């Protein structure tokens, strides 16, 4: 139902103007050859050229190619001299991502093309002159990996003066509202409208425009010279002065977008001639391998994929619309090659995907409402490489504290102090571990964040201390909207300091959200972010203790009475930056500000935990996200995998779905299955809507309570694995981790099995690291479950009712009995997984608990694995208080070495390895084992062929020791 309230392509002028646009047939762009050369682009070293089109109305473009390191090329395109400065995305990329000097790169200009390459790069950039293309070409075999403008869809709408009202045609009294019918949305090519050729030619008419303005616009908070103000002078024209479709004003429902800057959309196509699958561009509910939206003939078969961050109420499945966050990054691949591409633009963006006619790969078509064409090519060649290149570009995920990987208990809302304590106590009573108790909006005084409702929570400090007594934490919610209450300190502060987003008239915007009339901090400003961060202290936030962390919701931003439930695009950040340019990155900025707040508020050496609903490329640097307000249904449980896999491969690795489903009441069976799946997903939180029935794990009786407890406990046994995987991403750039420990913790099957075609489209199961295959049951009443096991591997069934770690002899689609007590998790031969099998109340008590290493032998009777250890909470690892250990099993000997850190002790560094469990040891009988000359006990389970070496009692984090099994 909600879907119908959202815009479709035909509701948006720029989408109508871009979607079916093509400059083919002789009018395409070509390079002005003698303009190619090394030059500065916005002060950065680049190869620059001018690209022109003979078609009227298309501005000359500046092309800039840069090398930003990690073999990643940046390609930028925009008008040579725009009338107004265009917005260039900032703060998404990691600090220090700067174009490298191209002095040592080679630029060779041929008759028809130019090559840019450097000796250490696996791929070169080739600029084709006529028609204009930018290609990424692999050095080894000259394979073309990606082609920009292969289909001549390059279109930059020039910024222009608003034409004066045309005198002759009688002013139509009906500026008919934009068509919004779905039929039209399905987009026959006929609704494509080429932009009007009328209008000013940029550059010629405005001598002020140029690089200076660019900078000015980028630094909009510091400089008032800009476009909007200037534009206002020529405001008097009629609505569509130049007859341009939806260019000067747009209406949707009761909202009008004033569009003072006029049309400025940008679009280009990107072909991947080798690719069979495209993955990425979260967040939506479509298939993981993105389906074509346009057929090979160019006819639209569905809406294009949309990226526009929205709070979609009760979102539906299998829709191309965007949800709460957007990451404009795709991975294109087949079984041999992988290429990544980032379209760095924070305005509303659409992507079409189509199969090329002659089965020559996939073509994508990207267009954004404003900004510049700013593309990053990540050459791979493997998915792992693309991922590393992406993290280098946008930053490593934040290293979470260990507690954040435990189980989170949330509900909208735990009513009061007594309720919170009762829930906490019940976990203890049932011996179910959990780490964090959450408080939703009702804990505040009238939805004034940074406050407490003292009638319900008379002593929040005492409550936090009570919860923390067993090592647990609390999280409270803080949203970006601020209640417009003149007695509310935060509102006073923001009003005095002018920290709010403004209406076009310069007064603070007020929209409707949880507290009623609210204003929104302008987090795009570094000053505002710092001011926000400074509020995380006990004076501005009473009862802010060391045990308290933060949940950022509604940061799309959600505005109940705004168009599509968000902000008007013509609102102003600072004096002139329109919201349209930064919409998709707003939530990211909010998360960043909160991260800074927690970092400062906790004294600088406590890793922040922030959960956000909205996100953009790079948000992984600040914490976790969840997939928003899902529903308690089997379909949504299945969909959680589809939603999480794209997030994983686009860097947003700390992500999860609300266990049980936010809306509605899950049947006990569904809830149990959801816990079983969620226990093996990165962010593991139970959450529920205010109107739902209580559903804490113990409320459903047996067998459900027991099975839910079991699922949670299994999560805790694997905390060392999760922690190591997160460390591999967060800290793995140092090269101390093996390749298999760098990559999303929750991996698509194809990540580990790129040559297995079955794996390409499998979105029902995943790998945790390279070691565990998880295939959750997502069907009601299922007693049989099909799991896909790639061939040429040995698989050990960890929860086989007939015995732990029994080898599965079949491969391919294997049917497994799966009564409700059965979780389908298998360990892959060749891996060693660290576990902590002691049951604890929370991760805090696990720091010094001994480890169990589960060695799963491959066909060569070998295996390998790693373990990362640190104190679980601080940044002391930065000064060496951590250790990375690598275990290898070969020739019946398990050996260990330190591959990183190990120079400073830390809490838990003296923990022992107590057991080694060898899966697939096989029928050789019990035998014996020695560790450093000591004979240790072994136990052999004949039914499963599992050998357990007992009481090893050697340090997990220190010393080189070897275990020999006879």
């Amino acid at each position, binding site marked *: 139902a909600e879907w119908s309230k959202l815009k479709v392509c035909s509701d948006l002028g720029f989408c109508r103007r871009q979607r079916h646009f093509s400059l083919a047939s002789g009018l395409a762009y070509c390079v002005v050859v003698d303009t190619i050369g090394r030059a500065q682009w916005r002060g950065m070293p680049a190869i620059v050229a001018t690209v022109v089109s003979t078609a009227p109305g298309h501005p000359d473009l500046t092309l800039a190619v840069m090398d930003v390191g990690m073999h990643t090329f940046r390609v930028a395109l925009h008008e040579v001299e725009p009338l107004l400065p265009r917005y260039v995305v900032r703060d998404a990329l990691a600090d220090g991502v700067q174009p490298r000097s191209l002095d040592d790169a080679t630029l060779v200009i041929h008759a028809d093309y130019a090559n840019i390459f450097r000796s250490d790069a696996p791929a070169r950039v080739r600029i084709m002159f006529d028609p204009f293309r930018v290609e990424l070409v692999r050095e080894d075999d000259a394979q073309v990996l990606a082609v920009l403008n292969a289909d001549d869809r390059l279109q930059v709408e020039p910024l222009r003066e608003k034409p004066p009202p045309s005198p002759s045609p009688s002013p139509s009294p009906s500026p008919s509202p934009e068509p919004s019918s779905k039929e039209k949305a399905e987009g026959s090519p006929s609704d494509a409208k080429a932009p009007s050729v009328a209008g000013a030619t940029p550059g010629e008419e405005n001598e002020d425009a140029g690089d200076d303005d660019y900078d000015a616009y980028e630094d909009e908070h510091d400089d008032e010279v800009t476009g909007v103000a200037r534009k206002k002078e020529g405001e008097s024209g009629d609505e569509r002065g130049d007859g341009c479709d939806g260019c000067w004003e747009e209406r949707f429902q009761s909202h009008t977008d004033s569009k003072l800057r006029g049309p400025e959309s940008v679009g280009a196509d990107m072909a991947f001639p080798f690719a069979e699958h495209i993955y990425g561009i979260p967040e939506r509910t479509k298939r993981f391998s993105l389906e074509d939206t346009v057929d090979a003939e160019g006819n639209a078969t569905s809406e294009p994929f949309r990226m526009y961050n929205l709070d979609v109420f009760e979102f539906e499945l299998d829709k191309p619309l965007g949800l709460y966050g957007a990451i404009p990054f795709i991975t294109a691949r087949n079984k041999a090659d992988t290429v990544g591409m980032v379209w760095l633009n924070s305005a509303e963006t659409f992507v079409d995907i189509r199969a090329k006619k002659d089965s020559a790969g996939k073509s994508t078509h990207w267009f954004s409402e404003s900004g510049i064409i700013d593309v990053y090519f990540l050459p791979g060649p493997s998915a792992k490489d693309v991922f590393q290149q992406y993290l280098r570009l946008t930053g490593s995920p934040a290293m979470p504290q260990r507690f954040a990987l435990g189980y989170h208990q949330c509900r909208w809302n735990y*009513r009061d102090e007594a*309720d919170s304590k009762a829930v906490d106590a019940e976990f*203890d009573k049932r*011996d179910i*571990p959990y780490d964090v108790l959450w408080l939703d909006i009702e804990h505040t005084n009238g939805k004034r964040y940074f406050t407490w409702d003292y*009638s319900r929570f008379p002593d929040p400090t005492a409550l936090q201390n009570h919860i923390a*007594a*067993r*090592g647990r934490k609390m999280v409270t919610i803080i949203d970006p909207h601020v209640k417009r209450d003149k007695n509310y300190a935060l509102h006073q502060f923001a009003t005095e300091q002018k920290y709010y987003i403004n209406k076009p008239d310069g007064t603070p915007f007020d929209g409707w959200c949880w507290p009623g009339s609210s204003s929104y901090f302008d987090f795009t400003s570094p000053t505002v972010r710092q001011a926000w961060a400074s509020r995380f202290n006990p004076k501005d936030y009473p009862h802010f203790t060391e045990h308290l962390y933060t949940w950022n919701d509604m940061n799309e931003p959600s505005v109940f009475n705004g168009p599509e439930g968000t902000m008007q695009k013509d609102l102003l950040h600072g004096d002139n930056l329109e919201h349209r340019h930064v919409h998709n990155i707003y939530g990211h900025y909010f998360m960043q500000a909160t991260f800074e707040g927690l970092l400062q508020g906790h004294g600088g050496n406590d890793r922040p935990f922030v959960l956000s609903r909205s996100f953009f490329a790079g948000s992984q640097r600040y914490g976790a996200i969840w997939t928003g307000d899902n529903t308690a249904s089997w379909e949504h449980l299945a969909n959680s995998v589809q939603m999480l896999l794209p997030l994983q491969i686009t860097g947003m690795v700390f992500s999860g779905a609300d266990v049980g489903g936010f809306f509605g009441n899950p049947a006990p069976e569904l809830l149990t299955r959801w816990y079983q799946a969620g226990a093996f997903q990165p962010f593991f939180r139970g959450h529920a809507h*205010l*109107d*739902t*029935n*209580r559903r804490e794990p113990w409320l459903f009786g047996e067998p459900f309570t027991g099975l839910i407890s079991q699922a949670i*406990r299994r999560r805790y046994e694997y905390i060392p694995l999760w922690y190591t995987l997160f460390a591999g991403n967060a800290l793995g750039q140092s090269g101390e981790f093996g390749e298999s420990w760098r990559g999303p913790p929750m991996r698509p099957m194809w990540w580990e099995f790129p040559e297995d075609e079955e794996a390409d489209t499998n979105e029902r199961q995943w790998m945790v690291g390279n070691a565990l295959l998880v295939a959750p049951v997502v069907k009601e009443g299922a007693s049989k479950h099909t799991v896909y096991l790639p061939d040429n591997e040995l698989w050990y069934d960890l929860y086989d009712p007939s*015995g*732990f770690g029994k080898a599965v002899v079949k491969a391919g689609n294997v049917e497994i009995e799966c009564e409700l007590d059965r979780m389908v998790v298998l360990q892959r031969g060749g891996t060693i997984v660290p576990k902590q*099998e*002691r*049951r*604890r*109340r929370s991760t*805090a*008590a696990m720091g010094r*608990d*001994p480890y169990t290493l589960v060695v799963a032998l491959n066909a060569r009777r070998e295996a390998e694995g790693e373990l990362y250890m640190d104190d679980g909470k601080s940044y002391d690892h930065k000064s060496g208080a951590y250790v990375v250990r690598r275990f290898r099993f070969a020739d019946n000997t398990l050996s260990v070495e330190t591959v990183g850190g190990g120079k400073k002790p830390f809490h838990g560094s003296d923990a022992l390895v*107590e*057991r080694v*469990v060898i899966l697939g040891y096989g029928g050789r009988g019990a035998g014996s084992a020695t560790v450093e000359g000591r004979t240790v006990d072994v*136990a*052999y*389970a*004949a*039914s*499963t062929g599992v050998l*357990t070496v*007992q*009481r090893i009692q050697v340090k997990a984090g220190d010393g080189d020791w070897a275990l020999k099994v006879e």
Partner: protein
Amino acid sequence: LRGAHPLNTTALESGIVCAPRDAPGHAPVSIPPAKLNDDYCDCADGSDEPGTAACPGAVFWCRNKAFRPVKLPSSWVDDGSCDCCDGSDEPAGTCTDTCSEERKKQLAMAKKQADAIIAGVATRQKYAKEAASDAKKDEREIKNLEQELERVEIDLKRSGRRADSLRKRRDYEDDLRRAAETNSPSPTSNPATDTGISSDEDSDDGDDAFIGNHDDHGNDGERNLELQTGDKEGGHDDHPDEKVKVKADAAQSEIENESKSDHKSHDDIHDDTDEDSAAEDDDVANDEDEDEDYSDDDDESFADDEDDDDKCPDCEEDGEEDEEKANAEEWNSDADDIDVDMVCAELGADGLNSILRKLNYYKIIVLSKLQRLLPISPPALIARERISDCVEKADTARYKLEDKKRHIQERLKKLKGKTSLDYGSDGALRKLHGKCIKKAVTQYEFEICPFDLVRQYEHGSVIAVLGRFKGWKGDGRNRLMNFAQGDRCWNGPARSIKVELSCGDTEEIVSVEEPNRCAYFMKFKTPAFCEKAAADAILADFEETERPKEEL
């Protein structure tokens, strides 16, 4: 042995046999003392590591010498949190032994609690005693009410009949009067005769009650009463019983054949009346054949009629003593004389209804003819008014009786409902019936009327009924009072509330929560839920400090 069951320590110290954890399916193995509490889990059941956290799901016993043993999950052992009062769950030196203080504190608390329970038990006994006598009182009342109800029902029937008779009499009188008026200018005219006949037939029809008793023998008296009332109120045109009407239609042709000439000149208004009369005549004929079946009914009718006569003076009690009245009385007594029931009673025989009817019929004919011959006498008119008055009075009496019946029935229903509820073994909870207890919780007030309903107030006025008592849920001490079908939530379900009872020295709402939307939960204290055993159990916990309790 650390963490071992206090009674089991010595047994453990010589080693144990258990199923091995690391080799599932393997035969049990013996675990030597050296491997007990060695921080490695050998046994699948965790029995070799009572004092460490090595075995997930194992049990740790705190000795708590100065207090009483308590068991913990092994996950709490050596986790940095002091959970045993003797501190034995953490490494030595981590925690202080607080057991004696804890014992003192808890004993004091327990004593207080036990005292409260004992006080409560006394109150409960008082409740039970009072409740028993209340119950007896209620039972007596029920019995009395039932008897009274019986009486009222009889009176009601009688008064109904009385009113009907009077009404008939009045109608009859009217007819006579009309006949007289019509006849007086020309006493011999035929139309007058016709009217007279018509009147006769009306009168005849007026005996519906009687005839109906036979006709609709399957129905009870009330039904007949309704039928009559309908007739009276709606007029003869609106015969409420279709069945009768159909019969009447069927009978019509016969009648027409028989007495076409007679009916020819009837006014249209009277058509239905004629039909009814004819139908009834026909029924009467049928009844003759089946008289035996109705003998019982007839007996009752006769008996009632006798009572009816007794009641008759009621109407006349407030009458005046003047001449007019005397006349009226005369008329009344005349009326009584011609009351068919009377006739029946006098005849005292079964199955003579048709004869009675005919007798009555002829009597009326005779009377009307007689009337025609005489001028209307003023006394007769006055008597007629008197009869009207009587009708009104009789009706009022009937309505009063109906009211009374309703009240008795309501009271009976209430009492029977009250009596049929489950008030626990000694019935002490009965004392809560009819009580209401209120308490403010946050900005609201909640009020429980046990066995009736629960309400929520804001600013002193009711904002919602949270539920109406629907019985108990669960068993024994854990059972809850279930109130459901309260006011519907906006966009949600009907409110409901479950009430958990516990022992307290007086009735009090302890807490009200809304764990699920519109589904509330109340804790409520009352002495009626106090048990001495509970007090004993609380104190027993402190008697033998060495004896482990099975429960945590």
